């Protein structure tokens, strides 16, 4: 090749072409989306998140959660994401407009967690935040009225086949979580896990205190002991084998982060114990203390409490929720197949129950 000019021009030209085509044009097309809202201008989605959310996202980035967990639900024709219960509709660009960084991610050594906040038990969303320091910031809880009554019934229907215990239990949990029916994998686990464990061990002291923040959700679990945990899982999220805080509650997240294998023996998630502090109990057990069982439980007189980073991380997780319908995306089971996916959002077809960050 003779002459530098054509070489330089070509080098710049080809690259400029790619830069404009793949970053500038898309930015022009979808780089300035606004939240959607209904005619009255209410029910805006998505909404900017709290400070704890942002800090939680930084903790999420710092500890590389993104290398194992994706946060994107593919459309039903493209994969089994929706059947697995990872969401009730595909993710859309608008879901992410307030997130930075965005953690779409490319790897699923762990589950997709785009909607993990939508799975929190309904109780979690109202009572505990009362005094609790930990979850207070998490937007997930602000929902005023937990819609426990109605949905579980719906949710219950697909399930009972698998185990009668479950049919009953969802009621307690408000099964906001529920699930597509697909497969009752959890069924096998439900009998085994609930066993006696959950009732007794660590928490008792904590439960004693009446308004035990995060611990609150232990109490419902304890009363209906055996069935509490698993039924929430619903078929596609059967991962819980042991442990008692209701799945996907803030307390559960803390236990899971502190000791993943105490909840699911097969998990290969690392434990994040450095986000927690083991300390001697002062006069009274902290309301934040983790409900640990078995070999993870701290010795008598000690407790494990989450650091502020851990609380932010959990607040972040609890706020991951794409169940709100989007105008430009079809939700599965929207009108027709309601039975298929009674998940939060379907219920959310009507505005109120949607776990959208109210306020």
């Amino acid at each position: 090749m003779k002459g530098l000019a054509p070489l330089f021009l070509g080098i710049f030209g080809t690259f400029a072409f790619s830069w404009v085509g793949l970053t500038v044009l898309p930015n022009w097309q979808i780089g300035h989306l606004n939240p959607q809202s209904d005619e009255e201008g209410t029910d805006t989605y998505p909404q900017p998140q709290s400070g704890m959310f942002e800090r939680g996202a930084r903790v999420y980035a710092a500890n590389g959660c993104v290398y194992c967990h994706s946060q994107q639900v593919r459309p039903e024709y493209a994969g089994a994401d929706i059947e697995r219960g990872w969401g009730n509709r595909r993710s859309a660009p608008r879901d992410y407009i307030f997130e930075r960084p965005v953690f779409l991610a490319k790897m699923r050594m762990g589950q997709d967690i785009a909607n993990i906040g939508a799975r929190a038990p309904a109780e979690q969303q109202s009572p505990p935040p009362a005094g609790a320091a930990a979850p207070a910031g998490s937007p997930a809880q602000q929902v005023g009225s937990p819609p426990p009554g109605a949905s579980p019934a719906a949710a219950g229907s697909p399930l009972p086949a698998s185990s009668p215990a479950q049919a009953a239990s969802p009621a307690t949990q408000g099964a906001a979580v529920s699930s597509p029916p697909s497969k009752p994998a959890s069924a096998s686990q439900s009998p085994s896990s609930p066993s006696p464990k959950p009732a007794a061990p660590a928490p008792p002291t904590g439960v004693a205190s009446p308004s035990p923040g995060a611990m609150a959700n232990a109490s419902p679990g304890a009363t209906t002991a055996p069935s509490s945990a698993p039924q929430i899982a619903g078929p596609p999220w059967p991962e819980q084998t042991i442990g008692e805080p209701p799945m996907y509650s803030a307390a559960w997240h803390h236990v899971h982060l502190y000791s993943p294998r105490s909840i699911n023996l097969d998990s290969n998630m690392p434990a994040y114990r450095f986000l927690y502090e083991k300390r001697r109990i002062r006069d009274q057990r902290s309301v934040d203390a983790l409900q640990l069982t078995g070999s993870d439980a701290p010795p008598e007189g000690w407790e494990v409490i989450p650091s502020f980073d851990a609380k932010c991380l959990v607040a972040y997780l609890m706020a991951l929720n794409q169940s709100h319908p989007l105008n430009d995306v079809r939700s599965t089971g929207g009108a027709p197949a309601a039975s298929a996916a009674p998940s939060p959002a379907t219920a959310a077809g009507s505005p109120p129950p949607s776990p959208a960050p109210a306020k």
Partner: protein
Amino acid sequence: MNATGIPLKEPSVSAAAGATEQLERAYIDASTRVPVLMFYTSAMAWLILGTLLAGFVSFKLHEPDLLSNISFLTWGRVRPAHMNVMVYGWASMAGMGTAIWLMARLCRTVLRYPLLLVAAAGFWNLGVLLGVGGILLGDSTGYQWLEFPGYAAIILFVAYTLIASWAVLMFRYRRGEQIYITQWYLLGAFLWFPWLYAAGQLMLFVVPVQGVLQSAVGWWYANNLLFLWFGAIALGTAYYMIPKVIGRPVYSYHLATIGFWTYALFSSWTGMQRLVDGPFPAWMITASIAAMILSMIPVATVGLNHHMTMQGYFPLMRYSPTLRFTVFGAMSYTVFSVIGLLISLRSVAGYVNFSQTSIAYSHLGLYAFFTMVIFGSMYYIVPRLVGREWRYASLIKLHFWASAYGIGLMTLMLLAGGFLQGADMENPSLPFSETVETVLPYLRGRSLAGILLTAAHFIFAYHFGLMLLGLGRTSTVPTFLNPVEAETSGGH
């Protein structure tokens, strides 16, 4: 020139050009000595560190409780640390070392402004060090391939500006009108990188784009770094080393031209194929898949060109370490591209998108292709810098086979494991933990492959250390992998 008449390491051109040119070349080589060795030595140190981190990452993935209570050793921090050490520490520094040497040789002028390069190497090391430290201490930005916190990124960019300006300066001092193929690629790499890096940093951190576009920019950056930075350096190096070692000109100049421009045009448009079915406008993804398909044109032309150049000379791979590594790398380029194409087709991507397959793909590109070519070039260049020949043929052979089997095994494990993992994931009646169970044995296999690679790198580092200390052989004949006397007819 050597006793047996096999034109190993002694290009035919030199026979014609005679002693003056030999001398001139030796003079140029000597002038590159300090900066290039500085880049190589740093790169070797990063390679060893990165290898240790890699082993740690690989084992922790199936033994999650290993040292997990220490914040800076948690898997999610060590993994990006490993990746960044390899990408910015090892691959970039070794690649730049080779590129600098090639620039001086091909511009046929002694290396000017060596201090610029020495300073750049220093800054670059500092940047990587701070960046990796930052990641381990919890400062990662969370964008894959751009995890370095801002303070490290700035230093890297400054270092890079020094190098790019050096490259442009060198180009002005060049002698001769002809610009050789290798120089196209190197010039491209030197100019694309700063734009790419600046665009990535600006669009993610300075004036961040909204929402999912961050991911698009991230993958655009990562993919182009792979193709336009590492790929361009490796292809340029292969275009130099293969003809040089066998002493024969490149088969077709026209093919090379087509290969270069289609490469620049099409491979720069890939990247979005990794986001198949994600929350993006479909045209972006489709455009990248189309670009992946069109990328087969440069793959075919470059592959054909190298093959035709090598035609009849393949037996020389028995002797020349450089040739063996370089040809392995050049062949891997084809494999890498074909597999890249297969896993980005929508029907396949649906299965493998979120599995270990993408790890296999990156390792094919960065290791089987790029790193092997660079190993080859180091076997060629280092003796010319230190004035000694490699000491042990056996160590070179060990290095080659451990690397080749290591990366081969790793790729197979991750591809097979990834496909099974993906297939399980698409079967909603299997609980999710089953998909992890499925892939775990393959991850253990990958750890095994990692042990081979670790051995390879330690062997090479030891050998390289001997050379640095002046403990190589003093000889006029380069170190061959096998005794040359046995077979004399390298010609066909």
